[in-house]
């Protein structure tokens, strides 16, 4: 059994033992090789001492320890097998490579730490550029709404006026029908409410005709705006404008007016019903036209949320107009109906199609907080710790409020370079966004059928699928780009709904003129319609048949099967949006029916659940 090499060394005088250890350690050989060297040197010195050599002399005779270690190392390595040496060489190269990469990684991390995102544009200034400018101060509607909405109880405040209006808005809103719930107002109460607010509703209708909404989108809410908005809404608005360092600014904060305006549209629909029930078709059309005009104002700016609210308001107008034409046709003169048609056609074409200009400003604003370039180059993905946590859904972006600063910063330094190299750079990201926008915008004028039959956009497929490579590379897009596939459908439905009511009004005018319903759609052209209305689901002229109360006009609907004008009750038409989509049964299957544009039976039964 060979003695322990270390024990052998330690048995020698301290100076010699230290010399041996110094040499052995400096060889940086493998453990077994070091042991061999140690044993041999220990053996040598032991022999020298046994021969009577003084320790100091033995040490002096050894020679240069460092040179010896180098030579021993080279010689020991030479003793290894060729494969062993090759592996060792490979390991050294690999270690060198890893070390180099690690060094570059750390340097890159330091570079990123020193070069944060460069915020190069003010999104609010861009937004201001795309907002319509009033020619005169009196062209702006918002100051008027600010006075009218509180009088109508359409504010965020919990005052008596609001409570009363909530009861009105929650009522069934139709003569003879019971309130929708215990809190809802009776029909008489609703009618009385409309009468009591006639002047305010008239002022509201006038304000809807002004060309500019003028909601303070690009500046904080003012003291005067407190008349409509709650303390927290005003505070949120001011916070938005004060905290210019805050990424992921929710631009929805800029549109606190949407809820009140949308409620105003429902009140106008109620007032239209009150007017029609009294035989005042002209006043009813005034209300319906006011809803549509109000919806046009709401599309300032063109945030998608504004578009969607505007279309929902127009849907309310369309549903209510159809119900009134079907059940109270005697209230309307030809002039009233012409005005209704004009109102339906008054929505500017640009507002009836998807527009991503304002959305893009919001997206670009979020992106500029996460890339190192100024918008002209590729730039590195390099969000701050706060942004990163918000992006990952780990907090509100407040590092202090979300945990340990040091931990967050360390995570950023460790993961930053990897993320910067992996995540698509700014140019790639914007190209991806543009490709996706282009695909969506190419469909903006498509009909319901075209959209229904079309596959998802090529850009959307990987983004919404489980393709983690695309999802992670285009992380920002996956997180910030809303699923817009359905928005084009909403626009197409909006166009189709207005065309349906336009056609219904044309039929009603035909009836007034000829004391009979038209036999075919072509009969409506050109006196009542510019062209034969096309079924957006079939591409063919809409269907028409029947006499008297059996007359109806219909589209084949989303199942694209003609059910000969079969009606299905959806039970929510008076209070909510009715889109040209068949109601679903309890199992979620579409009820076999058509999308009936006009069924003037004199009854409102089809608009309510059985």
């Amino acid at each position, binding site marked *: 059994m060979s003695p322990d090499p270390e024990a052998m060394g330690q048995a020698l005088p301290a100076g010699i033992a230290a010399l041996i250890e110094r040499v052995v350690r400096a060889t940086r050989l493998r453990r077994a090789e070091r042991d061999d060297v140690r044993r041999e040197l220990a053996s040598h010195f032991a022999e020298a001492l046994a021969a009577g050599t003084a320790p100091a002399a033995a040490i002096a*005779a050894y020679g240069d320890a460092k040179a010896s270690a180098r030579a021993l190392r080279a010689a*020991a390595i030479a003793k290894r097998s060729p494969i062993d040496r090759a592996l060792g060489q490979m390991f050294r190269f690999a270690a060198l490579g890893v070390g180099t990469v690690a060094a570059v990684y750390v340097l890159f991390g330091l570079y990123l730490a020193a070069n944060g995102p460069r915020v190069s544009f003010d999104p609010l200034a861009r937004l201001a550029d795309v907002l319509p400018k009033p020619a005169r101060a009196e062209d702006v509607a918002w100051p008027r709404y600010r006075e009218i909405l509180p009088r109508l109880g359409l504010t965020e405040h919990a005052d008596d006026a609001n409570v009363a209006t909530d009861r009105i808005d929650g009522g069934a809103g139709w003569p003879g029908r019971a309130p929708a719930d215990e809190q809802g107002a009776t029909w008489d109460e609703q009618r009385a409410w409309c009468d009591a607010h006639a002047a305010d509703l008239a002022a509201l209708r006038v304000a809807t005709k002004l060309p500019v909404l003028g909601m303070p989108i690009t500046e904080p809410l003012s003291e005067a705006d407190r008349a409509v908005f709650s303390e927290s809404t005003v505070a949120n608005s001011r916070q938005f404008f004060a905290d210019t360092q805050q990424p992921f600014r929710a631009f929805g904060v800029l549109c606190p007016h949407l809820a009140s305006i949308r409620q105003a549209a429902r009140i106008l629909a109620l007032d239209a019903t009150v007017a029609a029930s009294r035989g005042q078709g002209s006043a009813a059309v005034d209300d319906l036209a006011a809803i549509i005009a109000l919806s046009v104002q709401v599309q300032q700016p063109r945030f998608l949320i504004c578009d969607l609210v505007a279309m929902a308001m127009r849907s309310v107008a369309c549903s209510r107009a159809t119900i009134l034409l079907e059940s109270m046709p005697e209230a309307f003169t030809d002039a009233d109906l012409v005005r209704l048609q004009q109102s339906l056609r008054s929505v500017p074409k640009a507002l009836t199609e998807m527009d991503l200009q304002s959305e893009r400003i919001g997206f670009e604003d979020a992106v500029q907080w996460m890339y190192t370039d100024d918008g002209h180059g590729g730039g590195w993905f390099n969000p701050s710790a706060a942004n990163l946590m918000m992006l990952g859904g780990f907090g509100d972006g407040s590092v202090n409020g979300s945990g340990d600063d040091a931990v967050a910063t360390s995570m950023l330094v460790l993961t930053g370079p990897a993320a910067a190299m992996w995540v698509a750079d700014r140019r790639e990201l914007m190209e991806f966004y543009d490709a996706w926008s282009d695909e969506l915008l190419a469909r903006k004028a498509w009909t319901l059928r075209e959209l229904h039959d079309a596959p998802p956009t090529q850009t959307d497929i990987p983004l919404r699928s489980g393709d983690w490579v695309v999802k992670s590379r285009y992380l920002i897009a996956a997180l910030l780009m809303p699923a817009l596939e359905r928005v084009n459908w909403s626009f197409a439905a909006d166009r189709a709904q207005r065309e349906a009511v336009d056609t219904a009004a044309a039929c009603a005018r035909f009836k007034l003129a000829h004391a009979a319903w038209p036999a075919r759609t072509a009969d409506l052209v050109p006196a009542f319609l510019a062209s034969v209305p096309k079924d957006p689901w079939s591409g063919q002229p809409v269907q028409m048949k029947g006499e008297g109360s059996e007359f109806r006009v219909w589209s084949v609907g989303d199942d694209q099967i003609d059910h000969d004008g079969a009606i299905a009750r959806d039970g929510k038409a008076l209070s909510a949006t009715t889109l040209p989509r068949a109601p679903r049964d309890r199992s979620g299957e579409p009820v076999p029916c058509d999308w009936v544009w006009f069924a003037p039976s004199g009854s409102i039964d089809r608009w309510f659940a059985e």
Partner: protein
Amino acid sequence: MANVDGEFLRGAGSVAVLKLLERGEMYGYEIVEALERRTDGVLAMGQSTLYPMLYNLEAKGFVAARWDETGTRPRKYYRLTADGRKKLAADAKSWHRLTVAMESLGLTSVQGVLA
């Protein structure tokens, strides 16, 4: 007598070690002592030179080593291999030619070192 400089020793040292081992196996300290004694210090080398040289000779297959732990102190013995003998024969011829050449130039013979 002063020993030769390192550069010169590097070439001669390994031949000298092989020559010493021709007679039988030796351990490191023994080799150092023999070189010192038999060359009158001319080819004396410290351990810092000897052991790397022995490792190199072992790596090239000219010598083989074994540990002997039967004595009072463990010793690592080196012996000449067959390749080592061939190498020694070849080097000896080279040295012979060298010394002849040196002598023909009138330089002092170094043949005694290898005797």
